[in-house]
């Protein structure tokens, strides 16, 4: 198996507050890897460092065997931030076009990718509306479409399904699984929703800047002798405190 992402002894603090403490993590190619944990656990900081938007105080992060941060590699990473970073004065289409034109794509590819991504998140008919008229869920979906726009090898989604209805959530997850299975993409998802955690191949539980436990959802359930993932979350947290 090839390593897609290798995190080695990464620490990060903001001022005196230690956000991440000596994180080690290997993510293999073609997996869906879930980061679960309470708010403020350091999930977003970790994810941002993988994208190269933040640099670790100590340790290294390698993505596709290249040390991050690396500008060229950003072509291969699709990132969906926790907050919707969209241009509200522009239409959905103009947002997609703008972000698409920041990557190495030719005109035909841009067109294809936009229609693919818009179709995936069920936004095709609303593309010509301005984003400020979008609902919260629609903005989330547009952000996801933008993350997919350059057909990246690695997808990093920071709480992708917040504010999205269960039906659409299911269809997004089915598409994520298809992307993994058919196109061999590596997907990192941070989430609070436990049934989403169960769909991941691997789960790492982040709390107070350290990875408390990790493994397949089945392994974790067996380890804590529970049959419900909510309880894994609670028990793992309790053990530490």
């Amino acid at each position, binding site marked *: 198996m090839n390593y897609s992402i290798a995190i080695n002894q990464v620490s990060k603090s903001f001022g005196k507050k230690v956000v991440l403490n000596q994180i080690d993590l290997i993510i293999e190619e073609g997996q869906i890897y879930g980061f679960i944990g309470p708010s403020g656990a350091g999930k977003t900081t970790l994810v941002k460092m993988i*994208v*190269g*938007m933040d*640099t670790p105080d100590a340790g290294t992060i390698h993505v596709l065997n290249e040390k991050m*941060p*690396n*500008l*060229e590699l*950003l*072509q291969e*990473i699709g*990132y969906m*931030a926790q*907050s*919707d*970073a*969209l*241009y*509200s*004065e*522009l239409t959905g289409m*103009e947002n997609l076009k*703008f*972000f698409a*034109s*920041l*990557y*190495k794509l030719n005109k035909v590819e841009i067109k294809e990718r936009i229609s693919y991504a818009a179709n995936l998140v069920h936004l095709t008919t609303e593309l010509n509306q*301005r984003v400020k008229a979008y609902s919260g869920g629609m903005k989330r979906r547009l952000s996801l479409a933008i993350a997919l726009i350059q057909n990246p090898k690695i997808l990093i989604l920071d709480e992708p399904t917040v504010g999205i209805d269960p039906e659409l959530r299911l269809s997004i997850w089915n598409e994520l699984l298809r992307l993994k299975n058919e196109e061999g993409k590596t997907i990192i998802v941070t989430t609070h929703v436990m049934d989403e955690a169960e769909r991941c191949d691997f789960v790492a539980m982040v709390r107070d800047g350290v990875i408390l436990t990790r493994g397949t959802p089945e392994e974790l359930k067996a380890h804590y002798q529970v049959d419900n993932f909510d309880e894994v979350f609670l028990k793992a947290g309790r053990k530490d405190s």
Partner: protein
Amino acid sequence: MRTVALIKRICQEMLRDKRTLALLFVAPLIILTLMYFLFNGNTVDLKLGVVNVDNSLEKILEEANINVIQYDTADKETIVVEDLDGLLEVKNEKLELTLQNSDPSIAKALQMKVNQSVSLHAQSKFLNPNTAPVAIQKKNIDTQYVYGNSETAFFDVLSPVLVGFFVFFFVFLISGIGLLKERTTGTLERLMSTPIRRGEIVTAYLVGFGIFAVIQTVIVVLYSINVLDMVMVGSVWNVILINLLLALVALSLGTLLSSFAASEFQMVQFIPIAVIPQVFFAGIFPLEGMADWLQSIGKIMPIYYAADALKGVMYKGLHLTDISGDLFALVVFATIFIILNIFALKKYRRL
């Protein structure tokens, strides 16, 4: 390519924001027009009461556009009741002028005119008692002007400074808030997760907002010259060039300061710090009289150079070579701010 995409997006956003466009293009014109009328207003009618004053002196006073009203007796009470600007009395063969002085500038003007008239009157008596005072007035000192002419109003000297200031102010505000919006909505951070380079973002912002700054500059300059009839001795191209450089400085300073602001409100707080002090050194107040240390502060203000160059071209008709020093200073300011901008973006990504 990425820069072009970013420029296109900035333009799209600006064109959708009609109010900001109006602020950029219409507001400077409104303010300039207001200033024009404020400074070019006719001087108030001066009302002067006279008691026992010579008929010939009275005539001279009237010729000096003073509204003369005769009284048999009058005192300070009369001035207040009749709302006179002043009272001229002959007491014991001596002239005595009492001024209302509720507005010192009016009082000064009246005093000056009365003095002139009195000396003119004395002159006419001394030279030739038979000559009508009108003839003597015509023989008065023939005044020559190096710049401008007798019609020159304060506004004409002020206007080049105002043109430069408005270009600076509005470009500063709009570019600063433009980039700030990108920071607060998280789109700047989002941009940093794409392969775009920091230099490309800064370039795109300079060009994107630069396009609007160019349009604004041209509108303001053409309006001032053609509609407000500002004195324009030099080349209009030089004026546009100076304003473009100034707009570039404003643009880079605005985007730079926006990285130290967390909200639009904090951006507005930079106006009294970064913009207003520049007005003091723009040449509206005479710089020569300032203390040396104050003058050296003026020399670190971009508007100081722009105003100097604009005055030179518009009022004195200087050529490009005469103002090259000022232009160079503006280029240096812009370069420094642009480089600092690229560094300021490091906060978001090292590369």
